[in-house]
């Protein structure tokens, strides 16, 4: 073997105490100071029925019973106006009122939330189906799909979703405020009442 090819001496440095080296190096660490503090704010809680392509669970206790809403359209979307008790007797609102239980609902997939105005009256069979589905969803993941032929919902239980819903940290009151912001009808001058009366502003 030539001189150039001789084996390297693998012992490259004399032994030293690792802790002394670490003490020296530790002074180089810079604690990261995050001055930015973002706060994510919940700005939108949808109000409505769970769509037909998701499964849902309803919270067993977070609900508002004996509430009144009016279902209307805003463009192509459904809008549920929340009618406060004092306005229930208003002649333009009273015939349109729907008595509901507003239930906090978690949807799968994606763990989204919505406030679902579940009809309390069961005079229509579709309302009865909605009511039953919401009730069963307190324990199981359910799905509700409109069936044209039956003129009713098909209510089905999920085959194998074996995870529990994750509920939001915000209080139910906060969620109601966010969900119904601007659509709480609490006086006769509300734009929705004026619209129903045919008043052009």
């Amino acid at each position: 073997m030539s001189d150039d090819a001789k084996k390297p001496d693998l012992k490259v440095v004399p032994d030293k105490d690792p802790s002394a080296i670490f003490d020296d190096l530790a002074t180089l660490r810079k604690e990261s100071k995050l001055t930015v503090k973002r706060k994510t704010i919940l700005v939108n809680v949808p109000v409505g029925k769970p769509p037909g392509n998701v499964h849902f669970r309803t919270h067993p206790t977070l609900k508002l019973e004996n509430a009144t809403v009016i279902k209307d359209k805003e463009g192509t979307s459904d809008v549920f106006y929340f009618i406060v008790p004092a306005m229930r007797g208003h002649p333009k609102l009273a015939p349109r009122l729907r008595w509901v239980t507003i239930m906090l609902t978690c949807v799968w997939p994606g763990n989204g939330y919505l406030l679902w105005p579940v009809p309390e009256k069961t005079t229509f069979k579709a309302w009865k189906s909605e009511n039953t589905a919401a009730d069963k969803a307190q324990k199981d993941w359910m799905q509700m799909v409109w069936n044209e032929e039956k003129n009713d919902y098909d209510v089905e239980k999920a085959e194998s979703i074996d995870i529990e819903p994750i509920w939001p940290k915000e209080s139910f009151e906060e969620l109601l405020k966010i969900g119904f912001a601007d659509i709480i009808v609490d006086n006769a001058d509300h734009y929705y009442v004026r619209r129903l009366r045919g008043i052009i502003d």
Partner: protein
Amino acid sequence: MSAGSGASSTNGDWRQRFRSIWHVDFEYREDANHLPIPVCMYAREEHSGATISLWRDELLRLTHAPFDTGPDSVMVAFASNAELQCFFALGWPFPTNVLDPYVENIVAINGNTTVWPPPDEKGRKGRPGLLDALKLHELPARSQEHKDRMRDMILKNDHYTPEQRREIQNYNKEDVDDTIALLGTLPIDNINHALFHGRYMAAVAREERVGLPVDSEYLLDELAPNWDAIRLHYIQRDDEFHLYDGVNFVEERLWDLIKAMGWDWPRTPTGRYQLKIATIGRQATRYPELKSLARLRDQIAELRINKLVNTVGADGFSRCPLLPFWTITGRNQPSARDKMFLPSLPKWLHGVLKPPRGMALVELDFVAEEPAIVAGLSGDPAMIADYQNGDVHWQFAVRAGLAAPDAAVDHHIRDLCKPVCHGMNYGMTPYGIAAKTKKSLDWAREMQARHRYAYPVFHQWRGDVVAQAHFDEVITSPFGWRLIVTADTKTRTLMNFLAQAGGSDVMRLVSIVATECGITIAAPVHDAFWILAPLDELDTTIARMTEIMTEAGQLVTGGLPIRVKVEAVVRWPQCLGDVRKPDAKGQAMWCEVRELVRNGGLQKTSHV
């Protein structure tokens, strides 16, 4: 060697800290072990202007560097790992302080895509060499042709005429002149971190000098000479679509196949089908009929064994440049134009690793290094608890409701959660998670939501880190590795930066401490180390290295120790292929190839 703790310095005044600043450059050729043979050295002291120019015979007479290398001095050298290897070759003790303009230039431009890669070479990879750095700072630079000619002259001769000697020494001096000019333009904001980088370059020099020991007899005398026959054997066996002509891949045949099968296939900007090995690998997840082709190309058919053979020295060690600080997160990216780093090759080939006589080769891995770093840095109590309680991916499965807390680990569920946990570090989309796990998009979205719920502190921190980086226009690892943030910086890069750059910090710390306290590191490999130890000191060396790795991890995470696992122990005269478990990745193929080579299966096949 000092980390440079203590005095703080601002740009410029760092010079006052040192009594002497020696700019040093060696010219060298390579020996049969790919180690440098110093040809000459030029050094100039910055304050006094004193110079030293020595030819090889004069260098060999010295027992230490002919300039002050003590704590009050600093040695400046561009890509100093090469210069320090010359110190080794000459038997000189290392300088206490090293400042490397190659690294500090990277620090100055890291992430700034407006300056690097150069606007007229956007496809260029890697880091600026000396000439590039000079151009970047608008300093006069010699031509690349001149540099190439001189390099060839030095490398291709072992005796030089008086004229060549004069030219080489001039060239040597010019390199120092250039380094001095370059350093004058570099903003050394924090000399302590700069010296830390230099100290790491010393560790790299030690690691590059050692290299990975291989069974060179098997590799050079059995495997390499039969390489084409081995490739042909596998091609004949696995090339279901007849895309090869002998050992040559015929691209047109794959184009025809893609068209005939109606496969959706990614194309290059010029409209041609992408035929990279990685592309075929990804396509095989969509079209399983491509799996054997993907495996064939990745594992053997496209491997150029010569690139591995080129790294093996007469002493049986494989040495490949580690290319420190090569990635934006400060990690190494070992490679060279005509060389391949053995750990980057398919696992089956790692079987060739074999310690020298009387030694053991040991692989020590960090366990879930990146999750530990983000858990520690974010301070998320749930994530920290999950790391401390064992397997982070399984712990997440439990938190996500995919498994009962007291259930035994279900590896299928655990493996589904792994890409979710990794992906959430850098903002992987539900599409990415679905593709990785082969689960539905709905499942992926749900898992993302569950991860956010399980680790809210981490998610808040991750968002804050990204926002802070945008405000500061820079993001910095715990040990000072920084990335300049511009409008071009991807959010995902920022999300992942601290996990990767923190990992890089850990590797640097371990390399420094371990090599300085006498542990022989054969190679750092992403989040693992291969070390060599005499057989009679094996247990104590493993214990010491484990302790060093754990402590380094703890330093970076801010208190959370990163666990270390001994992944492999190979004792001479065995090689890794002799001791790997039969179900270890690549082991079956290692055995198969060896059987083919040794039992004549190749000849039969190649004559078919």
